[in-house]
């Protein structure tokens, strides 16, 4: 009996030492957000999220590459916790469907006040003080900041038009739409 207990204890102590030493000398820097996210995950390492284990999923989440709803064992609770941690629900509704836009300045209304130029983060609006301004469409990413500050409502946000060269075929209906 003593032998049994002893051998098990020795084994445990040895393995514990090895792991302890190893964890010290083999420590690898980790992203703290990743760690936190990983803490929220169930840790069952089952891979059902489509990633190889929780840490990979956490890494993907930290890099904002994965949806928060992928963990099967965690269920809804974990998804909510993750969403809260990453603050993604708000984001999602914000970025929903607008389609690309660009700003257009009605030159007859522009008074050359320069507010839009200051606001534009990509230098897409050119013009000197008190002169008409124009938007370089290619540089405009449609953030609509200029639209919001223009005192004369000279700025319109327009949908990027479809041209002969940018037009393409729409996705065809699924074959099943025809059959069933």
């Amino acid at each position: 009996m003593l032998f049994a207990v002893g051998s098990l204890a020795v084994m445990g102590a040895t393995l514990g030492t090895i792991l302890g030493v190893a964890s010290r000398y083999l420590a690898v820097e980790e992203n703290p957000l990743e760690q936190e996210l990983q803490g929220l995950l169930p840790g069952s390492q089952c891979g059902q999220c489509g990633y190889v284990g929780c840490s990979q999923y956490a890494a993907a989440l930290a890099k904002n590459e994965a949806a928060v709803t992928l963990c099967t064992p965690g269920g809804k609770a974990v998804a909510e916790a993750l969403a809260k941690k990453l603050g993604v629900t708000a984001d999602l509704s914000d970025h929903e469907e607008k389609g690309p836009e660009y700003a257009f300045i009605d030159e007859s209304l522009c008074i050359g006040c320069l507010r839009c130029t200051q606001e534009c983060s990509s230098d897409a609006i050119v013009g000197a003080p008190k002169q008409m301004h124009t938007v370089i469409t290619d540089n405009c990413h449609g953030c609509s900041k200029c639209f919001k500050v223009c005192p004369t409502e000279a700025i319109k946000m327009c949908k990027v038009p479809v041209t002969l060269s940018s037009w393409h075929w729409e996705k065809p209906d699924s074959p099943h739409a025809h059959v069933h």
Partner: protein
Amino acid sequence: MTTAYTDKSGPFTHAPSSVAKTMATVLAALLPATLYDAWLFGWPAIFLFLFTIAACMALEAATLAAQGKEWRVALSDYSVVLTGWLLAMSLPPWAPWWVGLIAAVFAVVLAKHLFGGLGQNVFNPAMVGRVAVLVSFPVQMTAFVAPHPLFAAASPGFIDALGITFGHAFHFDTMTAASALGYVKTELTKGVPVTQSMPGLMGLVGGARPGSFGETSAPLILAGGLFLLWRRIISWHIPVAMLVTLFVLGTVFHAANPARFTDGTFQLVAGASFLGAFFIATDYVTSPVSKPGQLVFGCGVGLLTWVIRTFAGYPEGVAFAVLLMNALTPIIDHHLRPRAFGRTRTGAPLPLKGGK
């Protein structure tokens, strides 16, 4: 008629092909062998055959209806008729009706429609059906009868036959015979060398022997297969690869140890080799799409058929071999894609040679 302008990109012409035509051609190719077998095994076989097909069709309609989908259209492509037909051909001709029914459930509901229906299944439905009942009812599935040609004196009449298929009139212990492959296998376990148990080839080729409904008429099956090749419904790759592999393995091992291994010709004409090679392994849905892939697939089916027939518990191997290779099909497809024009196998652009 209305003019459709720009709802669809081209092409605006189409080969005169359709799914229904393809399936109908395969059915036509099966017809001679089927008629011969129906004659050979009499009314019970005909009942089971019709019952199985009807069960498959009804189950397809029911599964689609349960999902709220349009079932009439699906039935009109005949794929389920073909599945039922091949399934019936793989059953012992005098098996009771419930064997056909359970096989049909496995084939049509589980193997086909749970995966989304035509074209989306990964396993050959008919073979899933056959294997499921083979594993479940080994007694009924290995009880073959010797041929009882229609209208011959010993063959059951219409009413008797109803009793065999739909009642309890069939007694397995008294009337059954083993198929050639099964016989060889059981004899082998008794220590009888293959050389003594292997039946004469002429009898096998002629087809008048106990066996599944569709395996007893090798010449007609072969003819049907050649018809499909001629109609370009199937290509030669799978059947040839499979039959050659089977033949070569049989021949080589028989030469090495005639007492243990049956020879190549026997491997070809016994069991469902031809039916499998031309009609089952070639199922589009569950075999690779590229020609090199089909060659690998065919060789795999041949190899596994031989291995299972020779070493495993079940005497007949085609069905298992087909299912096993079905499982490998996605991987084969993945690795044996054709080389794209102007690119190497890895997808990099070809080097500009010569620099002329």
